[in-house]
């Protein structure tokens, strides 16, 4: 077993373990913190895949923005959360069973696929060059349309989120 494999197994165990803790933690705040650990593990997985840019962006976007927003939402909706009693629906075991079967099925499908044993070719220097990615994103024959659409999506999100979350004047008066 090579050093890379050992690191992968450790990181994977941390990612999955904290993921399980994140969906099972009784206190929502703890769930959010476990989520942060899990996301950090995923960032390490990205680094193992030699996508260092996305490893860093993962930390920046997911931990720096999304996880902190989730913590914020937990704090804002805290008064209703006594964090007492069960936090899951009564038939959780049914979901767990179904998903376990699904997981086994996916694993079987993965392992039966012939290309699964493929060994990664050494990455060419152009593949890790961010300038190539950037040019591909604004290339009219490449991904220009999705790129521009995603910027429109972000703008729509900004407007929509503010409009949805802002306290209406009439509501304050009531």
């Amino acid at each position, binding site marked *: 077993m090579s050093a890379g494999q050992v690191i992968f197994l450790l990181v994977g165990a941390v990612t999955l373990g904290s993921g399980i803790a994140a969906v099972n933690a009784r206190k929502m*705040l703890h769930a959010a913190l476990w989520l942060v650990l899990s996301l950090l593990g995923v960032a390490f997985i990205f680094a193992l895949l030699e996508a*260092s840019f996305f490893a*860093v*962006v993962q*930390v*920046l976007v997911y931990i*720096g923005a999304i996880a902190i927003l989730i*913590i914020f939402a937990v704090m804002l909706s805290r008064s209703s959360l006594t964090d007492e009693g069960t936090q899951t629906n009564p038939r959780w075991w049914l979901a767990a069973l179904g998903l376990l079967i699904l997981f086994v099925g996916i694993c079987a499908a993965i392992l039966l696929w012939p290309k699964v044993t493929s060994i990664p070719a050494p990455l060419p220097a152009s593949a890790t060059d961010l300038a190539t990615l950037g040019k591909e994103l604004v290339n009219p024959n490449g991904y220009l349309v999705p790129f521009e659409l995603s910027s429109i999506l972000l703008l729509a999100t900004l407007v929509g989120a503010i409009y949805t979350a802002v306290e209406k004047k009439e509501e304050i008066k009531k």
Partner: protein
Amino acid sequence: MAVIWQNILTFLQGVLRFIGDPITILNQWLTGVLSGWGANATLIQVILAILGGASLVLGGLFFTVFLIWLERKVGGRFQDRLGPNRVGPWGLFQPLADMVKIFTKEYITPTGADKIPYNLAPVLSVGAVLAVIAVIPFASTIFGVNINVGVVYLMAVGAIGELGIIMAGLGSNNKYALIAGFRAVANLISYEVPMVLVLLIPVMFSGSLGMNDIARSQNVWYIFLAPLSAAIFFIASIAENSRAPFDLIEADSELVAGFNVEYSGLKFGMFYVADFLHSATAALIFATLFLGGWRGPGAESIPILGFIYLSVKATVVYFLILHIRFTVPRFRIDQMMNFNWKFLTPLALVVLAATAVVDKAIPSNLTALRIGVNWIVNIAIWVAADRLVRVVAPKRVVPEVARPRPLARPPLANPPQAAAEHEPGGEA
């Protein structure tokens, strides 16, 4: 006799070479020693990387001791007092005495605290700041790593620091700490937006995300090419550090001490260290991105000169941060949010777009023209923004500043003036 002189001369030359470029020579020497002991190449690399990391971190931590002294001394002068002056010459050893005091204090964990976040928070905040040092190029050969995503890494690591503050606020089971946690989220997430936007400008000029490449490409300091974005970056980095005038996270007069109110002993000390180190790294980052980093005459061939240049530049920026801290009053939280979302962020967007157009329009070898046009564009944007702010949000004149309302005074049974008025009548 001549041989002895020759030996002395070569020795002196060696010393000079060592002073000029200590890291490379130390590296070569250690590699030689370790391979003499029979270690293989990978192991040597790992050992040297660990040694380098440890020396960077320890250097950062020891440097903090000096920073604390500097800040207290400068702060003292700003407030017309002497500052620490008892322990050692000019009070230089005061932080050491404070350290001893802090080490011997008792750790108190408040009742109902969330143990794991509460104890993890100081570690995270110090660790995040120390991790920043890894990508700062101190000289052409003295840097931790030159990863190709250095600038994004800076922002990502800052996010982990935020997490430390939030965990401290939430884990302490204290309402002041919780409010500080709320404010930390609002403050840090908001000011990240203009900061990232103007960070793109050095990246655009240099064509690289690596910190050392950005420093190396600055034939002209980027502050001359993009003065307005440098100013925005400076303001945003002060806000990210939650230094005064943006120190709403630990506003003493509102929140007792903010997010670290429940911490004692070394755990408090770690927040303290993180705070000071954070402003020092902010100064270093600003100097690297906008003031040419280690660039200067002779810095390419004699790396230690680059270190000196960077230190001088960073010290100037750090002094500016201190100057602002000790002379500007604190913002209100709504003012701070408005300032960011309604002024800084749109301004940063406009500056980014304008700079991109100018940068593309003028070839990079016409340096003087580039500087001139960039200055004209920047000044035009600033004037326009200033006029717009005055038109859209004119200064509201408050007709009545304050009415005397003696709230704290109990109602007097016999008001003095009334008594004085009534006295004649009483006599009559």
